[in-house]
């Protein structure tokens, strides 16, 4: 046997006495551990696979000892070395009924470490054994093992079947101070959460546990309620508040108090009277307790449960300041920051009081503390201090380590972008801040900065001149081109300079920047954007030049007094090229016109130079491998060729006007770029009406005939790029491109139906920024001193008078600016189901659950109404009982129930809810009916369990 040969001399050290010959050579777990420890590096996988092979053989042995040791080894290996043990589930089950405590223990440990309803299909087989071990007649250690397994791997079915068996363990009568009772309470919690249907059965005993003299039982029950209240809707537990309050007053155990405070944190916002009653005990605990954990829990409860009670908040804030000041305990500093960020902007005075400590924390040695501090600061950003804080953080990012720097930039970027830049008043400032961020050597947030530059360009008209200025600064710097993180920003800068070239001081210089040799370092897509920008600039230069000529001609021919009028007339014409909407026509033409006047006017020579420059720089690119670059370079060169052909404008300026061709070309180009690009709504696609007769669901196979003939579209594109790569001869490439273009055109013509109408070719519009993401927490820092220089009161919102009015920011529909939190709908609906079930259990079965809304509006009026409603619904539910039985008998009651729960979740309307209630009642009654058939025992116990009449009267 392989195992025998490799085992050491200590084979028998701890292994139980073997009864069969082959178990003589079995390795014990200790042997295995020793072998694993002494193995040479790298030998572990082979050793493990050998061990598993051994176990597989041994575990089938009829001898329980051999089997148990094999299972023990497998448990060890799966738990610590991550080996799969699911195949041995049945063997673990085999050992569960073993009379030997040792084997039983091993089997239970193996089962609780590896069983789970989703993977263990033999789990139902354990039901009987679990019931046996849970019964009061079995030894307590066995029951304890069974409870533990149940609490770890209960499936809904198992929970349903075993819930009645928990009752004797939960009841105080059978076991006055049994150690099992707290465990049973914890197991009952698990049972409740996987199977809300058992709520009527288990809820009452769980409530009874609260009044047990045994503190352990109280602790477990409070823990269970804390879990229930914090994982779902806490409303159903409101009637238990007096009970909790009594425990709060009587219990001296910090463990219990902490859990109780969790419950009150959830309940206090629902019931103002409860909150008022809590203030005194909480303040007392805050003052007296020496346990930091309890103090911290009190702080948390006050901050999130009683934010309206100033006395408590004041005291809690003082405690937090103590936390923040504790130099030797980073844990307290961290938790102090966390607690402050729970307070929110309403109590920003509290943050302001600890401002210095908070800002110092930005330089804490612990990155987690720095992150919390940054998070807290960002929560406190308002439009009055956004400039100050952002500048501070961006400057600080320059000096700090790369990770921290980027977290700082992230924080600033996300905060400023929130809700379509709602915090930003001075966009010129923000745009130049974006430029500064781009120049941070650690910056890796190019994508986000790119998105914002383009987005601001599209949305904020008044920011465009500054945007172009910042973009020029970025484009002109050859050093930035080598940084791979910045290319996205440069792409945005190039796009902005091309699109809003009319604001550029010196278009010729811009072209030089866009075509500088180091642009070869850029990725192809960015280069394509660069070339497109050159195209736009070129078009702009020519149209300006022509306008200049026209003006000069006019001014020479027309009478002096008319010049101004004519000029503005022409200026309007120029503006027309830029924007078609009416907003800008008021002031823009004038400024544009004057800017043209002030600039170095384009001359014939400068334009010729420009053409030569572009031709030399872009020429080589027409043989580029990348289609995007290739295509755009060709466009540009084509335009230049065309302009070159018209020689007249070069030589005789006077005769130029007569040659209308150049005017036509320029007009054509103008109209190409005339339409202003705007932001696109996220929902834009949805608004496109589906044309009549278009069946979107239609099977695409029906279109196969379109491919059968001579459709070779895919290969065409490949050959196209290959050819241009191999030959590189301009003519050849041109010819092939012409050919493919004509093929494509033909194809489109034939199957035009399946193409979207051709749109303006702008890759940038694809890069349109997404709607706001939820705020990310970001982090840390190093040089504290200059950080504290924030001016006084900087974290408090205050009224500031802005010297400039905030420019118009184009916002689109609801889909544009709303930040969404990750929804937990699925979980909620299940929790809802549970709390609904518990609610029913609390109020007794005959009565339907009162709606959550009514509970949370918590006025006594609401309560009276509640009673009226209840009476009404009782009769309704009686009516529905029979029909419900008929309806639901055949269908699985559980799935029915769940479905209703979900529906209820979705429809908060009162009327519907009432209907739902009846449905739920009927589902419930049919459910009872079923249970009556299958499980008479459960039904009997159900009747034994008394209603809970006390807890309905809730008057604190």
């Amino acid at each position, binding site marked *: 046997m392989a195992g025998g040969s490799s085992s050491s001399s200590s084979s028998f050290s701890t292994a139980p006495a073997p009864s069969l010959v082959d178990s003589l050579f079995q390795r014990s777990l200790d042997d295995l551990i020793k072998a694993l420890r002494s193995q040479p590096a790298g030998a572990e996988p082979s050793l493990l696979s050998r061990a598993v092979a051994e176990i597989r053989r041994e575990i089938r042995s009829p001898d329980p000892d051999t089997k148990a040791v094999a299972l*023990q080894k497998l448990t060890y290996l799966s738990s*610590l070395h991550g080996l799969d043990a699911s195949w041995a589930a049945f063997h673990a089950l085999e050992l569960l009924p073993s009379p030997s405590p*040792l084997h039983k*223990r091993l089997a239970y440990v193996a089962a609780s470490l590896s069983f789970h309803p989703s993977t263990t299909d033999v789990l139902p087989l354990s039901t009987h054994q679990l019931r046996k071990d849970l019964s009061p007649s079995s030894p307590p250690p066995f029951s304890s093992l069974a409870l533990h397994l149940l609490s770890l791997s209960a499936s809904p079915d198992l929970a349903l079947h075993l819930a009645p068996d928990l009752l004797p363990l939960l009841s105080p009568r059978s076991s006055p101070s049994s150690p099992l009772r707290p465990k049973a309470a914890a197991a009952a919690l698990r049972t409740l959460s996987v199977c809300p249907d058992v709520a009527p059965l288990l809820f009452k005993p769980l409530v009874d546990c609260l009044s047990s003299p045994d503190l352990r039982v109280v602790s477990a029950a409070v823990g269970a309620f804390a879990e229930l209240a914090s994982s779902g809707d806490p409303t159903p537990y409101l009637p238990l508040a007096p009970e909790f309050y009594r425990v709060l007053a009587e219990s001296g155990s910090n463990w219990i108090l902490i859990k109780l405070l969790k419950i009150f944190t*959830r309940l206090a916002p629902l019931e103002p009277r409860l909150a008022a009653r809590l203030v005194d005990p909480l303040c007392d605990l805050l003052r007296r307790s020496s346990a930091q*954990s309890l103090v911290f*829990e009190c702080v948390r409860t006050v901050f999130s449960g009683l934010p309206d009670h100033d006395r408590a908040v004041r005291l809690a804030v003082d405690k937090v300041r103590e936390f923040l000041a504790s130099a030797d305990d980073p*844990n307290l500093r961290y938790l102090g920051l966390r607690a402050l960020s729970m307070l929110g902007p309403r109590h920003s005075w509290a943050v302001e009081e600890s401002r210095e400590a908070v800002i110092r924390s930005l330089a804490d040695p612990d990155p987690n503390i720095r992150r919390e501090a940054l998070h807290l600061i960002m929560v406190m950003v308002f439009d009055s201090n956004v400039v100050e804080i952002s500048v501070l953080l961006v400057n600080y990012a320059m000096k700090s380590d790369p990770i921290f720097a980027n977290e700082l930039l992230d924080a600033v970027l996300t905060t400023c972008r929130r809700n379509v830049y709602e915090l930003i008043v001075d966009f010129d400032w923000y745009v130049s801040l974006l430029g500064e961020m781009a120049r941070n050597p650690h910056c890796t947030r190019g994508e986000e900065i790119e998105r914002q530059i383009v987005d601001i360009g599209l949305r904020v008209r008044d920011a465009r001149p500054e945007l172009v200025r910042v973009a020029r600064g970025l484009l002109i710097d050859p050093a930035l081109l080598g940084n791979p993180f910045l290319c996205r920003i440069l792409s945005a800068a190039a796009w902005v300079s091309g699109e809003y070239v009319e604001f550029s001081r010196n278009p010729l210089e811009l072209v030089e920047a866009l075509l500088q040799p180091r642009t070869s370092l850029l990725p192809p897509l960015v280069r394509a954007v660069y070339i497109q920008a050159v195209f736009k600039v070129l078009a702009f230069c020519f149209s300006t030049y022509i306008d200049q000529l026209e003006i000069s001609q006019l001014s020479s021919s027309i009478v002096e007094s008319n010049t101004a009028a004519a000029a503005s007339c022409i200026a309007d014409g120029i503006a027309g090229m830029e924007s078609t909407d009416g907003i800008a026509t008021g002031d823009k033409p004038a400024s544009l016109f004057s800017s043209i006047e002030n600039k170095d006017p384009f001359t014939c020579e400068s334009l010729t130079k420009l053409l030569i420059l572009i031709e030399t720089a872009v020429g080589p690119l027409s043989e580029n491998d990348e289609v995007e670059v290739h295509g755009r370079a060709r466009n540009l060169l084509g335009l230049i060729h065309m302009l070159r052909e018209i020689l007249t404008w070069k030589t005789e300026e006077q005769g130029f006007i007569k040659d209308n061709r150049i005017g036509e070309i320029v007009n054509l180009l103008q109209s190409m770029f005339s339409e202003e690009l705007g932001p696109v709504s996220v929902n834009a696609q949805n608004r496109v009406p589906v044309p009549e007769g278009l069946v979107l669901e239609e099977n695409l196979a029906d279109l196969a005939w379109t491919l059968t003939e001579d459709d070779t579209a895919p290969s065409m594109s490949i050959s196209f790029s290959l050819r241009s790569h191999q030959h590189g001869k301009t003519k050849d490439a041109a010819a092939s491109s012409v050919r493919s273009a004509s093929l494509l055109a033909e194809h489109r013509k034939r199957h035009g139906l399946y193409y979207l109408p051709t749109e303006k070719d702008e890759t940038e519009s694809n890069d349109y920024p997404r709607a706001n993401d939820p705020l990310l927490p970001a982090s840390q820092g190093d040089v504290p001193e200059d950080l504290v220089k924030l001016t006084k009161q900087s974290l408090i919102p205050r009224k500031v008078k802005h010297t400039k009015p905030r420019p118009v920011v184009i916002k689109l529909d609801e889909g544009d600016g709303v930040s969404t939190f990750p929804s937990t709908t699925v979980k909620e609906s299940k929790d809802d189901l549970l709390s609904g079930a518990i609610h029913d259990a609390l109020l007794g079965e005959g009565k339907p659950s009162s709606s959550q809304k009514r509970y949370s509006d918590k006025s006594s009026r609401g309560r009276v109404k509640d009673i009226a409603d209840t009476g009404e619904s009782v009769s309704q539910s009686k009516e529905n009982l029979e029909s419900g039985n008929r309806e639901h008998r055949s269908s699985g009651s559980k799935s029915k129930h769940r479905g209703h729960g979900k529906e209820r979740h979705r429809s908060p309307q009162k009327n519907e809810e009432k209907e739902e209630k009846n449905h739920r009642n009927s589902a419930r009654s049919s459910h009872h009916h079923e249970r009556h058939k299958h499980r008479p025992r459960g039904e009997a116990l159900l009747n034994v369990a008394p209603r809970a009449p006390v807890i309905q009267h809730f008057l604190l």
Partner: protein
Amino acid sequence: MAIRFILLVNKQGQTRLAQYYEYLTLEERRALEGEIVRKCLARTEQQCSFVEHRNYKIVYRRYASLFFLVGVDNDEVCPSVLLNELAILEFIHLVVETMDRHFRNVCELDIMFHLETAHFMLEEMVMNGCIVETSKTNILTPIQLMDKAS
């Protein structure tokens, strides 16, 4: 808000005990352990004992060569339902003291060779992720009984 897992890890990053209170596949466990351990082991004494990782908050403490890590849910939306971090630190200390009392100066090897006993201790203390027992005597009595019986 309950405890999601308890891990014992040595200085080399090897897991010495792993108890999960929610279901994760073996691959998920391995990945999680690897990432968390790397994060926690890299931290210094001057840094706080709380680490956020994915949807967990890990509270950890180092005792000699062993790291004790406890994972709880990290709820960003409603931080008040988080398990009390300081209470978890106290719980970790309780675990260590209990083990120390049982094994007399507990060390890594004790836990390796008595993994089940260590699991039983945790079982006595934690049920379904809730702390149910905090008295060392109460925790150890059934274990000593079991040891005697077998």
